[in-house]
Protein backbone atom coordinates (compact mmCIF):
# COMPACT_ATOMS: atom_id res chain seq x y z
CA UNK A 1 0.00 0.00 0.00
CA UNK A 2 1.16 3.56 -0.61
CA UNK A 3 1.80 5.95 2.25
CA UNK A 4 -1.39 6.98 3.94
CA UNK A 5 -2.20 10.41 5.18
CA UNK A 6 -4.52 8.93 7.68
CA UNK A 7 -6.86 10.23 10.29
CA UNK A 8 -7.33 8.34 13.53
CA UNK A 9 -10.77 7.86 14.99
CA UNK A 10 -11.99 5.98 18.01
CA UNK A 11 -13.25 3.04 15.97
CA UNK A 12 -11.10 2.88 12.86
CA UNK A 13 -8.10 4.43 11.17
CA UNK A 14 -8.65 6.16 7.88
CA UNK A 15 -5.54 5.09 6.02
CA UNK A 16 -6.10 6.64 2.63
CA UNK A 17 -8.88 8.74 1.17
CA UNK A 18 -10.01 11.19 -1.49
CA UNK A 19 -13.01 13.48 -1.15
CA UNK A 20 -14.42 15.25 -4.15
CA UNK A 21 -17.14 17.84 -4.40
CA UNK A 22 -18.38 18.19 -7.96
CA UNK A 23 -21.01 19.63 -10.23
CA UNK A 24 -23.24 16.74 -11.38
CA UNK A 25 -22.85 16.81 -15.13
CA UNK A 26 -22.42 13.98 -17.65
CA UNK A 27 -19.15 15.37 -19.00
CA UNK A 28 -17.43 14.76 -15.64
CA UNK A 29 -18.55 11.15 -15.17
CA UNK A 30 -15.70 9.35 -16.92
CA UNK A 31 -13.04 11.56 -15.35
CA UNK A 32 -14.39 10.97 -11.83
CA UNK A 33 -14.54 7.22 -12.44
CA UNK A 34 -10.91 7.32 -13.61
CA UNK A 35 -9.94 9.15 -10.44
CA UNK A 36 -11.45 6.32 -8.39
CA UNK A 37 -9.69 3.79 -10.60
CA UNK A 38 -6.35 5.59 -10.12
CA UNK A 39 -6.90 5.72 -6.37
CA UNK A 40 -7.49 1.95 -6.23
CA UNK A 41 -4.67 1.10 -8.62
CA UNK A 42 -2.15 3.21 -6.75
CA UNK A 43 -3.30 2.47 -3.24
CA UNK A 44 -4.33 -1.18 -3.44
CA UNK A 45 -2.57 -2.73 -6.43
CA UNK A 46 -5.49 -5.10 -6.94
CA UNK A 47 -6.78 -5.13 -10.50
CA UNK A 48 -10.08 -6.86 -9.72
CA UNK A 49 -10.98 -4.40 -6.98
CA UNK A 50 -9.83 -1.51 -9.16
CA UNK A 51 -12.04 -2.46 -12.10
CA UNK A 52 -15.08 -3.16 -9.93
CA UNK A 53 -14.81 0.16 -8.12
CA UNK A 54 -14.18 1.96 -11.41
CA UNK A 55 -17.42 0.46 -12.69
CA UNK A 56 -19.28 1.31 -9.47
CA UNK A 57 -18.01 4.90 -9.51
CA UNK A 58 -19.04 5.26 -13.14
CA UNK A 59 -22.56 3.93 -12.55
CA UNK A 60 -23.15 5.96 -9.38
CA UNK A 61 -21.76 9.21 -10.81
CA UNK A 62 -23.80 8.76 -13.95
CA UNK A 63 -26.97 8.35 -11.87
CA UNK A 64 -26.04 11.48 -9.93
CA UNK A 65 -25.56 13.41 -13.17
CA UNK A 66 -28.98 12.22 -14.37
CA UNK A 67 -31.03 12.70 -11.24
CA UNK A 68 -29.46 15.41 -9.05
CA UNK A 69 -31.61 18.39 -8.27
CA UNK A 70 -28.80 20.60 -6.96
CA UNK A 71 -25.55 21.87 -8.43
CA UNK A 72 -23.28 20.11 -5.95
CA UNK A 73 -22.65 16.43 -5.23
CA UNK A 74 -19.99 14.56 -3.30
CA UNK A 75 -17.91 11.44 -3.85
CA UNK A 76 -15.54 9.93 -1.33
CA UNK A 77 -13.31 6.88 -1.60
CA UNK A 78 -11.41 5.63 1.40
CA UNK A 79 -9.52 2.73 2.89
CA UNK A 80 -10.08 2.25 6.60
CA UNK A 81 -8.20 -0.08 8.92
CA UNK A 82 -9.56 -1.59 12.10
CA UNK A 83 -7.94 -4.31 14.18
CA UNK A 84 -5.86 -5.57 11.27
CA UNK A 85 -8.68 -5.66 8.72
CA UNK A 86 -9.15 -3.18 5.89
CA UNK A 87 -12.26 -1.91 4.17
CA UNK A 88 -12.61 -0.02 0.90
CA UNK A 89 -15.60 2.32 0.82
CA UNK A 90 -17.03 4.40 -2.00
CA UNK A 91 -19.62 6.91 -0.82
CA UNK A 92 -21.66 9.35 -2.89
CA UNK A 93 -24.09 12.04 -1.75
CA UNK A 94 -26.51 14.05 -3.82
CA UNK A 95 -29.86 15.78 -3.61
CA UNK A 96 -32.70 14.41 -5.67
CA UNK A 97 -36.48 14.49 -6.05
CA UNK A 98 -38.92 12.64 -3.80
CA UNK A 99 -40.09 10.55 -6.78
CA UNK A 100 -36.53 9.45 -7.45
CA UNK A 101 -35.92 8.69 -3.78
CA UNK A 102 -38.99 6.44 -3.67
CA UNK A 103 -37.89 4.63 -6.84
CA UNK A 104 -34.26 4.20 -5.83
CA UNK A 105 -35.14 3.05 -2.30
CA UNK A 106 -37.38 0.36 -3.76
CA UNK A 107 -34.55 -0.85 -5.99
CA UNK A 108 -31.95 -0.71 -3.24
CA UNK A 109 -34.13 -2.72 -0.85
CA UNK A 110 -34.62 -5.34 -3.54
CA UNK A 111 -30.86 -5.48 -4.11
CA UNK A 112 -30.09 -5.69 -0.40
CA UNK A 113 -32.63 -8.50 0.09
CA UNK A 114 -31.48 -10.52 -2.92
CA UNK A 115 -30.13 -13.92 -1.93
CA UNK A 116 -28.45 -14.24 -5.32
CA UNK A 117 -27.60 -10.79 -6.75
CA UNK A 118 -26.35 -12.27 -10.03
CA UNK A 119 -29.68 -14.02 -10.53
CA UNK A 120 -31.53 -10.78 -9.79
CA UNK A 121 -29.35 -8.96 -12.34
CA UNK A 122 -30.11 -11.66 -14.93
CA UNK A 123 -33.82 -11.27 -14.22
CA UNK A 124 -33.66 -7.49 -14.64
CA UNK A 125 -31.79 -7.92 -17.92
CA UNK A 126 -34.46 -10.33 -19.16
CA UNK A 127 -37.26 -7.97 -18.05
CA UNK A 128 -35.75 -4.85 -19.61
CA UNK A 129 -34.55 -6.54 -22.81
CA UNK A 130 -37.71 -5.79 -24.83
CA UNK A 131 -38.08 -2.25 -23.45
CA UNK A 132 -36.80 0.68 -25.49
CA UNK A 133 -34.95 3.53 -23.79
CA UNK A 134 -34.88 1.85 -20.38
CA UNK A 135 -31.72 0.69 -18.66
CA UNK A 136 -32.06 0.68 -14.88
CA UNK A 137 -29.29 -1.90 -14.62
CA UNK A 138 -26.51 0.16 -13.03
CA UNK A 139 -27.19 -0.47 -9.34
CA UNK A 140 -27.95 -4.14 -9.96
CA UNK A 141 -24.72 -4.48 -11.90
CA UNK A 142 -22.73 -3.17 -8.93
CA UNK A 143 -24.40 -5.67 -6.60
CA UNK A 144 -24.04 -8.52 -9.10
CA UNK A 145 -20.29 -7.94 -9.17
CA UNK A 146 -20.12 -8.83 -5.50
CA UNK A 147 -19.94 -5.37 -3.93
CA UNK A 148 -22.06 -4.71 -0.86
CA UNK A 149 -24.50 -1.85 -0.93
CA UNK A 150 -25.95 0.41 1.72
CA UNK A 151 -27.84 3.66 1.60
CA UNK A 152 -29.16 6.50 3.76
CA UNK A 153 -31.88 9.00 2.99
CA UNK A 154 -32.05 12.25 4.89
CA UNK A 155 -34.57 14.77 3.62
CA UNK A 156 -33.85 15.00 -0.08
CA UNK A 157 -30.26 13.80 0.29
CA UNK A 158 -29.34 10.31 -0.88
CA UNK A 159 -26.14 8.66 0.34
CA UNK A 160 -25.01 5.48 -1.41
CA UNK A 161 -22.27 3.36 0.11
CA UNK A 162 -20.42 0.59 -1.74
CA UNK A 163 -17.95 -1.50 0.25
CA UNK A 164 -15.46 -4.30 -0.19
CA UNK A 165 -13.31 -5.91 2.52
CA UNK A 166 -9.63 -5.98 1.55
CA UNK A 167 -6.88 -8.42 2.42
CA UNK A 168 -4.65 -7.37 5.34
CA UNK A 169 -1.94 -4.84 4.44
CA UNK A 170 1.29 -6.24 3.08
CA UNK A 171 4.75 -4.74 3.13
CA UNK A 172 5.03 -1.09 2.26
CA UNK A 173 5.84 -0.15 -1.33
CA UNK A 174 8.95 1.96 -1.77
Amino acid at each position, binding site marked *: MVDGCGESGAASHRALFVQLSFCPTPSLVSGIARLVSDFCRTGLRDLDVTTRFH*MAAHELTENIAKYSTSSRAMLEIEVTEFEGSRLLTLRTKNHTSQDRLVEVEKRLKELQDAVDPAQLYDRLIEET*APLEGVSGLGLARIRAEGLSFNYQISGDELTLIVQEPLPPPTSRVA
Partner: protein
Amino acid sequence: MLRLLGIRTEGFALVLADAGAVPVVRLSGNGDGEVVAPLDRTLKQLHDELVDASVRSVVVDLGALYFMNSSCLKAFVSWIYKVRTSGKPYQIRIQYNPNQRWQQRGLEPLQRLAPAVVFLDEIAASRAATASGPASTASGQVNGGRNG
Protein backbone atom coordinates in the same frame (compact mmCIF):
# COMPACT_ATOMS: atom_id res chain seq x y z
CA MET B 1 -22.66 -6.17 -48.48
CA LEU B 2 -22.84 -4.32 -45.19
CA ARG B 3 -22.76 -0.53 -45.27
CA LEU B 4 -22.58 0.24 -41.57
CA LEU B 5 -21.42 3.81 -40.98
CA GLY B 6 -20.11 3.16 -37.49
CA ILE B 7 -19.37 5.68 -34.75
CA ARG B 8 -16.32 7.86 -34.23
CA THR B 9 -16.14 10.28 -31.33
CA GLU B 10 -13.23 11.69 -29.40
CA GLY B 11 -13.24 8.84 -26.89
CA PHE B 12 -15.05 5.97 -28.60
CA ALA B 13 -15.22 4.20 -31.94
CA LEU B 14 -17.29 1.45 -33.48
CA VAL B 15 -16.10 0.44 -36.94
CA LEU B 16 -16.95 -2.28 -39.40
CA ALA B 17 -13.48 -3.83 -39.61
CA ASP B 18 -14.46 -6.58 -42.03
CA ALA B 19 -17.56 -6.68 -44.21
CA GLY B 20 -16.98 -10.25 -45.44
CA ALA B 21 -18.96 -13.45 -44.91
CA VAL B 22 -18.32 -13.22 -41.17
CA PRO B 23 -18.42 -9.48 -40.51
CA VAL B 24 -16.21 -8.04 -37.77
CA VAL B 25 -17.31 -5.02 -35.73
CA ARG B 26 -14.60 -3.45 -33.60
CA LEU B 27 -15.26 -1.26 -30.56
CA SER B 28 -12.61 0.83 -28.83
CA GLY B 29 -12.32 3.53 -26.22
CA ASN B 30 -14.76 4.37 -23.46
CA GLY B 31 -18.44 3.41 -23.73
CA ASP B 32 -19.96 6.04 -21.46
CA GLY B 33 -23.24 7.93 -21.35
CA GLU B 34 -22.44 10.05 -24.39
CA VAL B 35 -22.17 6.94 -26.56
CA VAL B 36 -25.44 5.25 -25.58
CA ALA B 37 -27.77 6.75 -28.19
CA PRO B 38 -25.46 6.33 -31.21
CA LEU B 39 -24.51 2.82 -30.07
CA ASP B 40 -28.16 1.81 -29.75
CA ARG B 41 -28.94 3.20 -33.22
CA THR B 42 -25.89 1.58 -34.79
CA LEU B 43 -26.58 -1.86 -33.32
CA LYS B 44 -30.16 -1.68 -34.64
CA GLN B 45 -28.84 -0.77 -38.09
CA LEU B 46 -26.27 -3.56 -37.88
CA HIS B 47 -28.98 -6.08 -37.00
CA ASP B 48 -31.15 -5.02 -39.95
CA GLU B 49 -28.19 -5.30 -42.32
CA LEU B 50 -27.13 -8.70 -40.97
CA VAL B 51 -30.66 -10.06 -41.37
CA ASP B 52 -30.94 -8.63 -44.90
CA ALA B 53 -27.60 -10.23 -45.81
CA SER B 54 -28.61 -13.57 -44.23
CA VAL B 55 -25.39 -13.58 -42.24
CA ARG B 56 -24.94 -16.57 -39.91
CA SER B 57 -22.34 -15.10 -37.58
CA VAL B 58 -20.88 -11.74 -36.61
CA VAL B 59 -17.73 -11.05 -34.59
CA VAL B 60 -17.68 -8.20 -32.07
CA ASP B 61 -14.12 -7.33 -31.11
CA LEU B 62 -13.85 -5.60 -27.73
CA GLY B 63 -10.07 -5.89 -27.48
CA ALA B 64 -9.49 -2.15 -27.21
CA LEU B 65 -12.65 -1.25 -25.32
CA TYR B 66 -11.64 0.32 -22.01
CA PHE B 67 -15.08 0.42 -20.38
CA MET B 68 -18.79 0.05 -21.08
CA ASN B 69 -21.45 1.45 -18.75
CA SER B 70 -24.74 -0.30 -18.02
CA SER B 71 -26.66 1.79 -20.55
CA CYS B 72 -24.28 0.68 -23.32
CA LEU B 73 -24.60 -2.90 -22.07
CA LYS B 74 -28.37 -2.41 -22.33
CA ALA B 75 -27.93 -1.52 -26.02
CA PHE B 76 -26.27 -4.92 -26.43
CA VAL B 77 -29.07 -6.56 -24.41
CA SER B 78 -31.65 -5.07 -26.80
CA TRP B 79 -29.68 -6.27 -29.81
CA ILE B 80 -29.25 -9.79 -28.41
CA TYR B 81 -32.92 -9.97 -27.49
CA LYS B 82 -33.84 -8.95 -31.03
CA VAL B 83 -31.61 -11.67 -32.49
CA ARG B 84 -32.96 -14.26 -30.04
CA THR B 85 -36.56 -13.49 -30.95
CA SER B 86 -36.10 -12.92 -34.68
CA GLY B 87 -37.01 -15.48 -37.29
CA LYS B 88 -33.44 -15.51 -38.61
CA PRO B 89 -31.14 -15.72 -35.57
CA TYR B 90 -27.39 -15.54 -36.08
CA GLN B 91 -24.43 -16.01 -33.79
CA ILE B 92 -22.82 -13.05 -32.03
CA ARG B 93 -19.23 -13.99 -31.22
CA ILE B 94 -17.85 -11.49 -28.73
CA GLN B 95 -14.06 -11.35 -28.43
CA TYR B 96 -13.17 -10.07 -24.98
CA ASN B 97 -9.86 -8.87 -23.60
CA PRO B 98 -8.76 -10.75 -20.44
CA ASN B 99 -6.63 -7.75 -19.47
CA GLN B 100 -9.79 -5.68 -19.20
CA ARG B 101 -11.13 -7.47 -16.13
CA TRP B 102 -14.61 -5.95 -16.32
CA GLN B 103 -15.27 -7.48 -19.73
CA GLN B 104 -15.76 -11.12 -18.84
CA ARG B 105 -17.77 -10.23 -15.73
CA GLY B 106 -19.89 -7.78 -17.70
CA LEU B 107 -20.43 -10.04 -20.70
CA GLU B 108 -21.35 -13.31 -19.02
CA PRO B 109 -24.88 -12.09 -18.18
CA LEU B 110 -25.37 -11.29 -21.88
CA GLN B 111 -24.42 -14.84 -22.72
CA ARG B 112 -26.85 -16.18 -20.14
CA LEU B 113 -29.58 -14.10 -21.80
CA ALA B 114 -29.14 -16.01 -25.05
CA PRO B 115 -26.68 -18.92 -24.83
CA ALA B 116 -27.51 -20.12 -28.34
CA VAL B 117 -26.78 -16.68 -29.78
CA VAL B 118 -23.89 -15.21 -27.75
CA PHE B 119 -20.46 -16.82 -27.62
CA LEU B 120 -17.55 -15.38 -25.67
CA ASP B 121 -14.07 -15.85 -27.10
CA GLU B 122 -11.02 -14.78 -25.12
CA ILE B 123 -8.48 -12.84 -27.15
CA ALA B 124 -5.01 -14.40 -27.09
CA ALA B 125 -2.76 -12.87 -24.44
CA SER B 126 -0.25 -11.45 -26.90
CA ARG B 127 -2.89 -9.57 -28.80
CA ALA B 128 -4.79 -8.58 -25.68
CA ALA B 129 -1.74 -6.76 -24.37
CA THR B 130 -1.39 -4.87 -27.63
CA ALA B 131 -5.08 -4.15 -27.94
CA SER B 132 -5.18 -2.62 -24.47
CA GLY B 133 -3.21 0.31 -25.87
CA PRO B 134 -5.39 3.11 -27.25
CA ALA B 135 -4.03 3.18 -30.77
CA SER B 136 -3.94 -0.54 -31.47
CA THR B 137 -5.24 -1.86 -34.75
CA ALA B 138 -3.74 -5.30 -34.28
CA SER B 139 -5.58 -8.39 -35.37
CA GLY B 140 -4.87 -11.87 -34.15
CA GLN B 141 -6.10 -15.13 -32.77
CA VAL B 142 -8.71 -15.86 -30.21
CA ASN B 143 -8.69 -18.67 -27.71
CA GLY B 144 -11.45 -21.26 -27.65
CA GLY B 145 -15.06 -20.21 -27.31
CA ARG B 146 -17.10 -20.12 -24.11
CA ASN B 147 -20.77 -20.66 -24.27
CA GLY B 148 -23.57 -21.72 -22.04
